[in-house]
């Protein structure tokens, strides 16, 4: 069959379908909904998982993050007693010195605090850390500079603000060079880095929050010590934590798992209680990817079922159409149409039907995520493969479910078909 005749058959198919507009539309509906929902679901799913994966990736796939965790029993007992837990300066030193695959380790103290500038006051999280932090946790530097070694050695009263805290605290004023007051001390703002949105990724608290002020570790130890006092609901909660967090950089991505294991073994030996948690972003990433795969399989099954239903709908209508057009088939055969040409005619009709349904479905599938994104604020990504796949599948549905009615049409005996009333 050459292209010219093929196009004429397509035109004939479209014309025949247009004779029964309502019926054709209702027949297409199954495929429209099938394809539309698949793309929409994939878009939402991909959007969510991409966001999660991106957050995890930002933690650094070559990093291991160790957090201090307050043990359960300390949280439940009366709050007057001091709770002593968490990572220690010794842990940091031991990990750095004894595990060869660790290329760098960055500690952090997290101190919830109040900051003042003039009359304004706001809650702020003080992060005491080393300059290495800014290498491991990649954040764009918006203005000024990052913390330096000289800040460490000099116990300088300097801080780097996140963009968000800079805006809230200093509003319209000149930010760099300004001084904010935390507790009894003033800190000069030397730099601003971009804030990260989103708090937790895959159960790991991201190393930074939106409203942070980074100060040198040495300064933090000197000014704040290791005891954090938090007033909560009238009671005062005191805890002594040397380090709240450590970010460990591993020399090679292949060593991440083994290093994490080594760190856990070491911590187990020196801690009487499990007052820490080791998180491996890489493992979380793998897990997120696996989850995504499972999600895709589930989605694929749903898609398969809905398209199956759509296909059965098409087959049903085409079988009715074949019966209805028995005489037409007889006439065409008597005139000299070959069986294969009858098959072609009916098959093209179903393919036109299903692929038109597929195209409409794609239009829906692309639009719905936009609406979801607009109203629900969920990030969505319509993957290109979803569109290509849907179109391919809807054509396939047309072929698979159109073949049987078409063959039945072609098998009709022309003599019987011509007599059919």
């Amino acid at each position, binding site marked *: 069959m050459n292209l010219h005749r093929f196009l004429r058959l397509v035109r004939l198919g479209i014309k*025949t379908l247009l004779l029964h507009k309502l019926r054709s539309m209702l027949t297409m509906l199954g495929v429209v909904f099938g394809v539309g929902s698949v793309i929409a679901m994939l878009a939402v799913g991909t959007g969510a998982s991409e966001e999660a994966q991106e957050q995890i990736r930002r933690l650094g796939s070559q990093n291991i993050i160790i957090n201090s965790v307050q043990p359960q029993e300390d949280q439940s007992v009366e709050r007057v007693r001091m709770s002593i837990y968490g990572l220690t300066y010794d842990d940091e030193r031991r990990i750095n010195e004894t595990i060869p695959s660790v290329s760098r380790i960055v500690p952090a103290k997290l101190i919830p605090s109040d900051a003042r500038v003039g009359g304004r006051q706001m809650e702020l999280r003080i992060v005491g850390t080393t300059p290495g932090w800014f290498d491991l946790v990649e954040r764009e530097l918006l203005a000024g500079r990052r913390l330096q070694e000289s800040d460490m050695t000099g116990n300088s009263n300097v801080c780097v603000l996140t963009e968000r805290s800079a805006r809230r605290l200093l509003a319209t004023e000149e930010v760099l060079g300004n001084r904010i007051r935390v507790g009894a001390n003033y800190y000069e703002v030397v730099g601003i880095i971009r804030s990260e949105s989103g708090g937790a990724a895959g159960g790991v608290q991201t190393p930074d929050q939106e409203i942070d002020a980074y100060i040198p570790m040495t300064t933090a130890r000197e000014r704040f010590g290791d005891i954090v006092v938090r007033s909560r609901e009238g009671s005062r909660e005191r805890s002594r934590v040397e380090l709240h967090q450590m970010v460990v950089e591993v020399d090679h991505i292949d060593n991440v798992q083994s290093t994490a294991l080594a760190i856990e073994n070491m911590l187990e030996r020196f801690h009487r209680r499990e007052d820490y948690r080791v998180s491996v972003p890489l493992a979380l990433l793998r897990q997120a990817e696996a989850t995504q795969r499972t999600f895709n399989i589930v989605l694929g099954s749903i898609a398969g079922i809905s398209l199956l239903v759509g296909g059965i709908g098409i087959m049903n209508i085409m079988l009715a159409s074949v019966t209805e057009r028995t005489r037409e088939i007889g006439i*065409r055969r*008597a*005139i*000299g149409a*070959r069986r294969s040409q009858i098959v072609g005619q009916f098959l093209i009709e179903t393919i036109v039907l299903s692929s038109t349904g597929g195209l409409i479905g794609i239009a829906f599938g692309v639009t719905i995520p936009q609406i979801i994104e607009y109203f629900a604020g969920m990030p969505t990504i319509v993957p290109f493969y979803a569109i290509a796949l849907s179109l391919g599948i809807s054509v396939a549905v047309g072929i698979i479910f159109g073949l049987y009615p078409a063959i039945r049409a072609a098998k009709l005996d022309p*003599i019987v078909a011509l007599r059919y009333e």
Partner: protein
Amino acid sequence: MKDIQTQTDSDTVTAATESEAMVRLEDVRKIYEMGSEQVHALAGVSVEFGSGSFWAIMGPSGSGKSTMLNLLGCLDRPTSGRYILSGQDVSRLEDDDLSQIRLTYLGFVFQSFNLIAQLTVRENIELPLFYLGWESRESAKRALELATQVGLEDRLGHRPAELSGGQQQRVAIARALANDPHVILADEPTGNLDSSTGEHIMELLRDLNKQGKTIVIVTHEPEVARWAHHRLHMHDGLIDRID
């Protein structure tokens, strides 16, 4: 089509002598199995229709005239015997080859017109040309010619339902002519028409016969059969007489 070609070659000697006989049936039998019973719809029929002749096949219902027309129209194959059409033995051809024979050599006119309701007059006439693979412009030109020949050039855009019975039958004749067939087979062509319209249709068929077409009609009406040059009377699957 290769099969047909080889067959034609092997029959060259006879083909020359057969050129006068457009249609030749040699001891053709058609047996249907009805449960355990065998029905001899055609019980051994031999007849020749010459090129450019005009035949009427007559007989009561059940006499085998419809079976004969189906065989002549290559819509069915004989159980035994040979059917030579335009010098080719078509009695053992495969389904696709029979389609090709119908498309090339035959034109059909039916009692109930059998136009496709969804298509316009022009599209109905063009139907054989579609399967012959004609270009649409050529095909439209041919459809106009044929419509003019049957006097319906101003009805090309109409649907069959918008035409009278006589007009519909004329469209059917135009369609039967589209592929320039050797033989036109008509099954009770006036059966659904009043007598004066029927007369017009028969005049049209007679004119076509005068132009050289071989025409075979099946009818039970003597007035219709009178138009033909030869009348073949069937009875119980056999030729009763020819006059």
